[in-house]
């Protein structure tokens, strides 16, 4: 047993490849048997991944899902930002630049609109839960943008650490909901072409959420959605602590 564990721990990335392979196999089978292929195998796999992450998080009390178990730590490398971004960039191969140019205006607009919209929704919800000071409201509003914008804004405006933790949680919820929900709402919002995918990426903005959600919907849409989503966090970090916070402070006063 000890030997097995040490072999697994020493070859963590390889364990991850085998594990995800097994997960995809089970998911493909479940997709065919239970949903007759209506829910993509990849959507089922992402869902199973999230369930495992929840289980891992509750058992270990860590923040890296199932990768908090040492034998599964390779999943953290395989699913980490470096390889994720590497794979996202590779999906752009063969993309038609004309499509991107055609959706350029709505794509750019969607990013700014997406940040402002998430911020407003987050602020309103926080206000309903009894927060009145501009710093806390702005931090939770920024968290509703992405879980990176939340802490960046919170630190800049001097919010308390529990409010910053809440903003991260709001951003995580957003990313998980986008991963799970995108294939379900795709037909309702016309998410079936490069242009709407670019608008979707800009409006939702969470790179991990958009990456997972579009993968579960139609992999061909990934490069378009990722293209706009990748600007979102930067724009959010730019607007959150500055324009949005100042405007909010003028409205709620202090």
């Amino acid at each position, binding site marked *: 047993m000890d030997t097995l564990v040490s072999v697994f721990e020493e070859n963590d990335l390889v364990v*991850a490849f085998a594990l995800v*392979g097994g997960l995809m196999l089970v998911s493909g089978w479940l997709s*065919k048997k239970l949903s007759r*292929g209506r829910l993509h195998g*990849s959507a089922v796999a992402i869902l199973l*991944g*999230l369930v*495992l*992450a*929840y289980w891992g998080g*509750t058992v270990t009390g860590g*923040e*890296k*899902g199932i*990768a908090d178990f040492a034998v*599964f730590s390779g*999943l953290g490398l395989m*699913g980490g930002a470096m390889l*994720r*971004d590497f*794979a996202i*960039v*590779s999906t752009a191969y063969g993309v038609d630049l004309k499509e*991107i140019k*055609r959706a350029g*205006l*709505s794509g750019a607009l969607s990013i700014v609109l*997406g940040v402002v*919209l998430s911020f407003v*929704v987050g602020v*309103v*919800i926080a206000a309903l839960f009894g927060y009145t000071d501009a710093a806390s409201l702005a931090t*939770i509003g920024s968290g509703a943008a992405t879980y990176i914008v939340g802490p*960046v804004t919170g630190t800049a405006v001097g919010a308390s650490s529990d409010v910053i933790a809440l903003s*991260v949680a*709001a951003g*995580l919820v*957003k*990313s*998980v*909901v986008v991963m799970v929900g995108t294939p379900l709402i795709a037909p309702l919002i*016309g998410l079936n*072409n490069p242009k*709407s995918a670019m*608008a979707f990426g*800009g*409006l*939702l903005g969470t*790179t*991990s959420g958009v*990456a*997972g959600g579009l*993968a579960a919907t139609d*992999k061909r849409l990934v490069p378009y959605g*990722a293209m706009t989503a*990748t*600007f979102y*966090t*930067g724009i959010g*970090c730019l607007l959150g602590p500055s324009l949005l916070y100042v405007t909010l402070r003028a409205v709620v006063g202090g």
Partner: protein
Amino acid sequence: MVLYGVAALAVCMLAGTLVGEVLGIAVGVDANVGGVGFAMIMLVLVSHWLRGRGKFPEPTEQGVLFWSAMYIPIVVAMAATQDVAGAIAGGPMAILAGLGAVVAGAALVPVLARIGSPAEPLPPQDADEKQEV
């Protein structure tokens, strides 16, 4: 050589990320602004240019396509390492704020997609293509 494709991809990603970092510093934010997006555009331009000159043969292409095929498994690994427990532990306010932002954003997709010339849906995939990832 397959590695040439992987290397081209790596150079594009590094260059794009660097541009995103510099842009972040230029506008004064502690975040990468669009690095992945710049990398994607670079990859499209560079591969298009090299292909036109016959310098991007099939094996090189395979080096890029391999990572493109690894995309979904990588996303599955990413899903399995998310702090889902943390998200749920955030309580009703965090859940409502996150959910509200998704609903509001998704509702605007059809509105924004209407700006400019209309787009046609991608051709449907058959069941095999859906499973093949």
